[in-house]
């Protein structure tokens, strides 16, 4: 195959004549001879389109995906069922961009789905306003911390160690660069240690951040934590939630949260190697002007037709940039659309069904795995769709055995929580069948 460069030798010569040089090499005469490579680049020979397609297919086939495995791995990314309509709508060319609308008001369709997404997130979280999304659950937590720090003019953030360790890493990285102090509170039997939390909340605290269901799958006592946070005037209570859990759990808004964030991946977004995902963020009306990102509103045009507009955007992001606390001005457009389509497809009842099935199946799996006593519950607390067990067997050994049986095992807690040696966190979504769960528990029984 010949490389696709359409200029002939004659074309080249004519161009050189116009600019007044003799050869292409003359164009590089400024570069000293001794730094020039003087040989061809060490690249593979070119391939035809057919060859490239074959090669890429072969590469793709060396992946093992959750289509080939039965997935019991969660820890922040979940194998929920994605209704086929989600893919059909997100791949429509009118919508197919991950980016923010330029000349926004012309993009009425984009504005409409952002408006609908924001409405859905507000309904789900029990808050007044939502932005048009952030990158992922981790950046959403960091942005919430900045927002709280900005509102309270304080720079101490308290976060529970039961929050996803990756989110805490993101927060620590961002906070470090903004001179924000991050205090991490140890867990006590799988939940935030409330006594420890009380000791650290003081007049310098901008926010208390917790996750519920937390990283271990356990439902935190949000009301009690909110009270501790609000024991200090103006300290904000930030909660990170699994949006699916809100199908059956009380909304964080009704439990006193000031800012609600979370990872939107469970809402119709494929696992796809860890991203792109979707960070959602909602808050109370009083803090609307400090919300990073943008808010879309519904109105009518000059002819009285229903229309959508970019209503509000933190002024710091444009006219007072030096005061900006966030550089978020784009959003995860296509994933926002996926989440909106997912939520309207399921509706209230459907979301409750997904949440109920996941919980019931997770509890069934927990019972099956722990019934013989070989695997013991790591914690004794109410959980949603994830639970941790421990045994005398090394977690990696267990996961390797499961992989041989085409099962993607749980998350080894020891990596981030050395105190929970051999602890494994299993996630069970509505997709798992009784047979799959029974197979998992019987294979686990057989491992010695």
């Amino acid at each position, binding site marked *: 195959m010949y490389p696709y460069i359409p200029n002939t030798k004659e074309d080249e010569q004519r161009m050189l004549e116009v600019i007044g040089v003799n050869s292409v090499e003359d164009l590089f005469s400024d570069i000293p001879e001794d730094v020039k490579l003087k040989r061809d680049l060490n690249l593979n020979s070119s391939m035809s389109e057919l060859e490239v397609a074959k090669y890429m297919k072969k590469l793709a086939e060396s992946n093992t995906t959750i289509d080939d495995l039965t997935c019991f791995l969660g820890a922040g990314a979940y194998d929920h069922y994605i209704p086929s309509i989600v893919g059909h709508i997100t791949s429509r060319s009118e919508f197919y961009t991950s980016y923010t609308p330029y000349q926004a008001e012309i993009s009425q369709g984009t504005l409409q789905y952002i408006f609908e997404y924001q409405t859905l997130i507000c309904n789900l979280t029990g808050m007044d306003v939502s932005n048009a999304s952030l990158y992922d659950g981790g950046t959403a937590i960091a942005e919430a911390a900045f927002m709280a720090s900005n509102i309270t*003019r304080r720079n101490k953030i308290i976060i529970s160690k039961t929050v996803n360790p990756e989110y805490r890493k993101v927060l620590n990285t961002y906070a470090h660069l903004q001179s924000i102090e991050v205090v991490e509170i140890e867990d006590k039997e799988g939940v935030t240690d409330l006594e420890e939390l009380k000791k650290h909340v003081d007049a310098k605290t901008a926010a208390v951040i917790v996750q519920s269901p937390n990283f271990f799958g356990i439902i935190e006592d949000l009301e009690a934590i909110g009270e501790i946070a609000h024991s200090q005037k*103006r300290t904000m209570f930030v909660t990170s939630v699994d949006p699916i859990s809100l199908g059956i759990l009380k909304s964080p808004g009704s439990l006193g949260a000031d800012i609600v964030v979370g990872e939107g991946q469970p809402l119709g977004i494929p696992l796809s190697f860890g991203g792109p995902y979707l960070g959602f963020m909602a808050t109370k009306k009083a803090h609307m*002007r400090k919300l990073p990102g943008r808010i879309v509103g519904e109105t009518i045009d000059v002819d009285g037709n229903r229309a959508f507009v970019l209503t509000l955007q933190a*002024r710091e992001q444009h*006219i*007072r940039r030096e005061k900006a606390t966030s550089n978020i001005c784009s959003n995860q457009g296509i994933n926002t659309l996926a989440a909106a389509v997912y939520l309207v497809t399921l509706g209230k009842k459907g979301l409750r069904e997904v949440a109920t099935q996941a919980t019931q199946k997770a509890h069934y799996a927990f019972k099956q795995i722990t019934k013989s006593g070989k695997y013991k519950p790591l914690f004794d607390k109410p959980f949603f769709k994830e639970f941790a067990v421990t045994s005398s067997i090394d977690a990696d050994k267990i996961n390797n055995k499961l992989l041989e049986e085409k099962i993607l095992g749980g998350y080894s807690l020891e990596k981030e929580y050395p105190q929970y040696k051999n602890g494994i966190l299993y996630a069970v979504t509505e997709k798992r069948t009784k047979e799959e769960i029974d197979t998992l528990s019987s294979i686990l029984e057989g491992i010695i």
Partner: protein
Amino acid sequence: MKVVKDLYYTEDHEWVKVEGGEAYIGIADYAQDQLGDIVYVELPEIDDEFEQGEAFSAVESVKAAADVYMPIDGKIIEINEELLDDPALLNEDPYENWLVKIEIADKSQLDDLMTSEEYEKFLDEEA
């Protein structure tokens, strides 16, 4: 541009009305005129303390946003909540509609400010 007598003024167009050990602070007519239609006022919280020159509020109009700076050291003892509901009051009467009331920390700092006569002259020079 309207300048009210017996108030103190800053070069950033804030005014100060002293009442004993306390003072009302607002933005001058010139400031509201420059900003245009005001759509949002951000106010501090009661008990917040500010030093002279520190931004304590932000005023946003349809075309710009501006910080409002504390003319003298003080502690916020009252905020004008009416402005939160109706920011346009600042356009209607910027002298009647104060932003905050403070407890003055150091009265001698008032000497740093302009009298209404000096401010009028300052405005003439600005123009």
